[in-house]
């Protein structure tokens, strides 16, 4: 039964992706002199080109690296959101948690002097603790005094951003640099590259480890059971004796820890320093990934790779064709919209059923025009 639903789902997603790409191509046709070439960049750009013209050569490994580097970010953020979604909570706080994670990682990177074996883990743990605590705040507020988590996480994002920028401009910035940012992290605090000439770092293993860890947490620990049951039916969880308030708070805190880890990855793996605008709005992309993956950890891995591919392809298209950035973003948004709409389809059916039930009520009432 699992198998058939898996395959039929794959076919459905395939169909939706094709339709979405078709619409994307249509838009490209309107704006580009060479729509086919431009769209090919989107579709194949992130793949390395193998050429035999001049002996065996692999070109464009940096593009491939960009794809993987982007996907690592998206997978970690997707996992962060998947956890809260599993507990049927909502969180828009990944952005703020990510910034504070980066901040914590940056402080440890700049002010601790240790060998690489200690320095990197220490910075990563610091980032996760910062994210955990920043996620715990809205969690506790929601669980114990019923503060809406959408509002609280958004507000905490603002606080985190201002705190980050304050510390960066007042204390951490490198006064000799021409822009607001820290000096480069020492090599002991930079994630080592594992594929030469790319930005693929050991964070790849970190992301894979996180996928397995979250899968293990959800399916092989009592806390995971509690998160799943709280998400399936809160009242049932209470009735069964689960401490639902604590589970809600912890699920949001764990989400924060993963977002914090993402922040550390951006700082220590990609930028190698802290800058004023770390990566605006990236926190929200985790929601897209979690939605695509139906909150399943291994699904997040696949969805993260897919979405990362799309984003990288879009950047390449923007750089190497006459399609402008805005149009590229529209195409990307259309594709994601269609795919998430497919995710929303069951909800839509439910809505239609409710609506037809409502119509029955109206029917019973008679209706003048009948």
């Amino acid at each position, binding site marked *: 039964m699992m198998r058939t639903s898996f395959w039929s789902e794959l076919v459905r997603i395939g169909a939706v992706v094709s339709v979405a790409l078709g619409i994307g191509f249509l838009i490209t046709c309107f704006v580009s002199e060479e729509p086919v070439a431009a769209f090919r960049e989107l579709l194949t750009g992130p793949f390395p080109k193998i050429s035999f013209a001049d002996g065996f050569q692999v070109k464009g490994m940096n593009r491939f690296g960009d794809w993987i580097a982007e996907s690592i970010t998206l997978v970690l953020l997707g996992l962060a959101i998947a956890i809260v979604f599993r507990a049927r909570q909502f969180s828009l706080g990944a952005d703020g948690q990510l910034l504070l994670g980066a901040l914590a990682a940056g402080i440890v990177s700049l002010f601790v002097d240790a060998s690489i074996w200690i320095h990197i883990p220490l910075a990563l743990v610091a980032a996760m603790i910062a994210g955990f605590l920043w996620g715990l705040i809205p969690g506790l507020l929601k669980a114990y005094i019923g503060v809406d988590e959408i509002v609280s996480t958004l507000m905490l994002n603002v606080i985190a951003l201002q705190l980050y920028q304050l510390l960066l401009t007042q204390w951490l910035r490198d006064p000799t640099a021409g822009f607001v940012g820290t000096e480069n992290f020492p090599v002991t605090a930079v994630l080592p590259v594992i594929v030469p000439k790319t930005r693929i770092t050991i964070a790849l293993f970190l992301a894979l480890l996180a996928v397995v860890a979250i899968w293990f947490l959800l399916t*092989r620990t009592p806390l995971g059971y509690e998160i799943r049951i709280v998400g399936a039916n809160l009242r049932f969880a209470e009735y069964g004796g689960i401490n639902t308030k604590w589970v809600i708070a912890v699920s949001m805190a764990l989400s924060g820890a993963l977002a914090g880890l993402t922040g550390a990855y951006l700082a220590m793996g990609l930028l190698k320093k802290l800058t004023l605008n770390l990566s605006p709005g990236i926190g929200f992309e985790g929601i897209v990934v979690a939605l695509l993956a139906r909150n399943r950890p291994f699904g997040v891995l696949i969805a993260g790779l897919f979405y990362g591919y799309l984003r990288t392809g879009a950047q390449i298209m923007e750089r190497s064709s006459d399609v402008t950035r805005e149009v590229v973003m529209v195409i990307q948004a259309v594709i994601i919209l269609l795919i998430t709409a497919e995710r929303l389809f069951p909800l839509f059916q439910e809505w239609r059923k409710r609506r037809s039930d409502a119509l029955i009520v109206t029917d*019973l009432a008679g209706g003048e025009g009948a």
Partner: protein
Amino acid sequence: MSLIEMRNITKVYPNGVAANQTVDFSIDRGEIHALVGENGAGKSTLMKILYGLEQPTSGEIYLDEKAVQIDSPHHAIDLGIGMVHQNFMLVPSFTIAQNVVLGREPRSGMSRFVDTQEAIRITESLAANYSLDVDATATVESAPVGMRQRVEILKTLYRGADLLILDEPTAVLTPQETDDLFDAVRRLVDQGKTVIFITHKLIEVKEISQRVTVMRHGKVMGRVRTADVSEEDIARMMVGRDVFLQIDKPPQQRGPALAQIQNLGYVSETGQPMLRNVTLDVYAGEVLGIAGVEGNGQTELAEVLSGLKQATTGNILVEGQSIVAADARGVRRAGVGHIPEDRLTNGVALEADIADNLVVDRYYRPPFTNGGRLSPRRIRTEATALIAEFDIRAAGDDSPLGSLSGGNMQKVIVARELSADPKLLIAAQPTRGVDIGASEFVRGQLVQQRNEGKAVLLISADLAEVMSLSDRIAVMYKGEIVAIFSNSREGGNPALTEQELGLYMLGLKRQETLP
């Protein structure tokens, strides 16, 4: 001459379920016809087809021997067919008159505004014509349940219904209200109306109907004159085997007071006192039934006892140990099981699989969790065993709970609560909406608990159930215990009838001192 004749009706849903298979159904003008069957037997599908809510896959419908296509409820109403649904479809904040005329309001002159006075006049004259007593100017939310039902009936009459389909109309009524309803139905028939009466309760079939059609598994098992058959005959047709309507209870072996409820009070979040000074002992080896019109504190009593709500005052002791301050897990650890009233809200998680539903009270203990690690394999082993032991009909332990029928969902709950081996079992509405087969099973399990020397607190709106299972019956009215009766057969209490209990349930009588 038959008023309605449905011939060879087959309904296959897109998911392949054949809800009706070559069903023949006919009603004579002016009769009260009972339609009975277990949940899922296809009776509501058949009635939805008659009311135009569903289209048959094949088959014909004849009205006065003319073939008709009923393609919508509007059309059904035009043809004189009206339906009173089990869940009332009324606007609570509107007056009864407004509800009766809703959608076909009388308009005053040129202004085309709703003529409120005319609406009241229409309602009152309809009510007088059919002796359906309602207060036309009161809002629906302030009206008692029995009156709301009369409003529903008036609504269909106002739309010109000659045939009324009543879908389980007595499910929410007290014995007195049920008697009133039956009187009203008989008067409707006297005035030339025809009534289809859908029900679960066989005693009502005998009392009200002239003929009965029995359905099972989407087919008609028989159509008989009610006078010619016994309740047992009808039950056998419904279930396909002999059913023991009377629970076989061995004489009671009553032990010491296992649970003591002392001066329990509970004030709701809105400041309403829902429980007042409730004092009850539940003895080992007894079923203590709580009777009462719904909304008189029974729900709150179950929730406070099971730790879902915190008592405002008073104490609860289980084997001498106070559990009044404990949370749900603490109460369970003290040996209290709870079959919750609202199955879908509290008792199960529809999206989670059956196995996860079966271990919600024990997943954190060995053998399910060892050294902080949860074992899905052990959970499945437990689930497989419980599914077999309690005869839960499911595709597998990993299918979502929402795929089960109501009766099987209830079996999942009963399996979980009984396998925890509770000393005190709180069973709230344990057979509501559950088919006869599963109801019989659940009732048997409750009696089994009692026979094993456990205590059972049974809260049920079904008086027949309370009277057939309980060793003692307490009556709740406005959050208080107003009477406690012995109900043991050998103790003998012939005076205790449903009518007598009804007087206490409605607050018309109360015992001065509780025994």
